[in-house]
């Protein structure tokens, strides 16, 4: 199949279209604007809907409405915009509605900056909004995965009836790489018998709702949802293992940071240090098994993040703190150089875990 050069943001948009998404609602924000621009160009020609909402608050609720009506719907934004969507995402989780939400992260907090960042890890993996819930958080690290994982995201959302987030960053969104626009085989999807698209007089009314005033019933609905989450954790975690077979020092990194970490792993190996990389493709569910296994052979871990130590908590949890976990952090839009990661590897290899 022909490979084309494409920006990560554009690959996300084209992949969504390949996955059957015809409804996109968004609000402009740097550095994700190409997603919206691409959709505004393509969707009208496909009989779909591109709608620029008055805010991220509105756009996520339009996604909610379209999803409730049974179609594959999507929005994309960047960090401050995702904060505004948190209410709507919580409602969608409570209503068990599928949707795909793209976060091309920028530096924060507050208005922050417009350069790439990974500082929304906690937001994506702990809880995007209020209440007990998770979203599935996928982390591509190249334009090809921007395409492939976006398609998977729609399937996961439909299968588990939950919002799925693509957690990218400004580098992945803006960079161009060759991509094969291949259609990922669609998984077996459950029938959508719960949608609110009109009864046609043939069934009782469906209700999409997150209000459950009886605490016993609300608790039970959470229990049920967490049973599903357990299933997701058992069967959907994904992780790339890069030179980990004989690794003494195992780096943990996702997204753009994982690419730079690969340079550092090679540089370390050239110096005789056995370094490797575990790269989660799913941040929630975190690929705990890969990390637990690595804890048996590795001497130490290094969490390489463009944030002040967020994923490191998951690394520690997954390895049950059996081995030291050091942090190699840049933030605010600053990106690691391979050399500074290498320096950290050398330092950790020398027994300095700070």
């Amino acid at each position, binding site marked *: 199949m022909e490979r084309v050069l494409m920006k990560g943001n554009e690959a996300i948009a084209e992949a969504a279209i390949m996955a059957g998404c015809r*409804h996109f609602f968004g609000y402009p924000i740097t550095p994700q604007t190409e997603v919206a621009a691409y959709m505004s160009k393509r969707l009208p020609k496909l009989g779909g809907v591109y709608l620029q909402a008055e805010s991220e608050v*509105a756009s996520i609720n339009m996604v909610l409405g*379209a999803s409730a009506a049974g179609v594959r719907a999507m929005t994309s934004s960047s960090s401050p915009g995702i904060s505004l969507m948190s209410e709507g995402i919580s*409602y969608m989780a409570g209503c068990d509605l599928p949707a795909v939400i793209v976060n091309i992260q920028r530096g924060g907090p507050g208005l922050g900056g417009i350069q790439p960042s990974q500082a929304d890890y906690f937001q994506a993996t702990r809880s995007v909004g209020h209440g007990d819930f998770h979203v599935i958080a996928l982390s591509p690290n190249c334009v090809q995965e921007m395409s492939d994982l976006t398609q998977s995201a729609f399937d996961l959302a439909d299968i588990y009836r939950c919002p799925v987030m693509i957690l990218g960053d400004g580098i992945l969104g803006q960079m161009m790489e060759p991509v094969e626009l291949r259609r990922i085989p669609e998984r077996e999807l459950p029938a959508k018998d719960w949608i609110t698209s009109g009864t046609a007089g043939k069934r009782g009314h469906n209700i999409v*709702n997150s209000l459950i005033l009886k605490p016993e019933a609300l608790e039970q609905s959470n229990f049920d949802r967490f049973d599903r989450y357990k299933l997701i954790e058992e069967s959907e975690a994904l992780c790339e293992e890069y030179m980990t077979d004989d690794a003494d020092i195992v780096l943990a990194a996702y997204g753009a940071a994982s690419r730079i970490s690969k340079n550092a792993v090679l540089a370390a190996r050239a110096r005789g240090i056995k370094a490797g990389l575990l790269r989660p493709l799913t941040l929630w569910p975190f690929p705990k098994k890969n990390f637990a296994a690595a804890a048996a052979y590795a001497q130490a871990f290094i969490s390489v993040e463009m944030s002040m130590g967020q994923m490191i908590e998951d690394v520690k949890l997954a390895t049950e703190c059996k081995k030291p976990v050091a942090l190699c952090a840049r933030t605010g839009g600053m990106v690691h150089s391979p050399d500074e990661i290498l320096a950290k590897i050398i330092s950790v290899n020398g027994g300095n875990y700070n």
Partner: protein
Amino acid sequence: MTVFERPKALSDVATHYCPGCTHGIIHRLIAEALDELDLTGRTVGIAPVGCAVMAYDYFECDMIQAAHGRAPAVATGVKRAIPENIVFTYQGDGDLAAIGAAETLHAAARGEKITIIFVNNAIYGMTGGQMAPTSLPGQITQTSPYGRDVESAGYPIKVCELLATMNGTFYAERVSVNTVKNVRAAKNAVKKAFDYQNQGKGLSIVEIISTCPTNWGLSPQKSLDWLAQNMIPYYPLGVYRDRGAE
């Protein structure tokens, strides 16, 4: 022979509304309109946050419960996904004119082909009687205990007047349900709004001046009197926009 029965679009359940509240009448008017226009099977209603939050249990059509103020955005999503659907929101004054003002204005600006049923009783009901964006100057509420002081709390928002200025608004009418005559006029307005949507016209809104005996601290009868004496003069009834008649 039955001479008066429950509209088919209205579910056979008891509502939770307070005695003397006008929500019940308004629900019935919507249900009658859906029955008469034979729309229930392809209608999706959006319930607000506020007293009518559980409206999803009261209508036989498909229903969605929206976050506070977001009903017009949710309705937009449904309508854009399935344009053949008839989509209505049911919103109170806090939901529509305060926290959801942006969603309301922009739905109108876009001319979304939805119907908004706006229940204006000048107070936040469900949370226990706080000042609303439509509370009258001088009106005493839990959070305007000395009366709404426009110097600090600002002026009430006249929603129909505001939306009538927007090109996307196809139909805007303010009605009330305080008298039999007004109930009949309200019924016509609600039916007209749905009819316009069924014809593919732009946004239609029916603002219904209503009571809140519980939080106004008045009997149902006195509430109707207070409405007639205080609210209707401030919020004149009538058609503010009807592009179908222009």
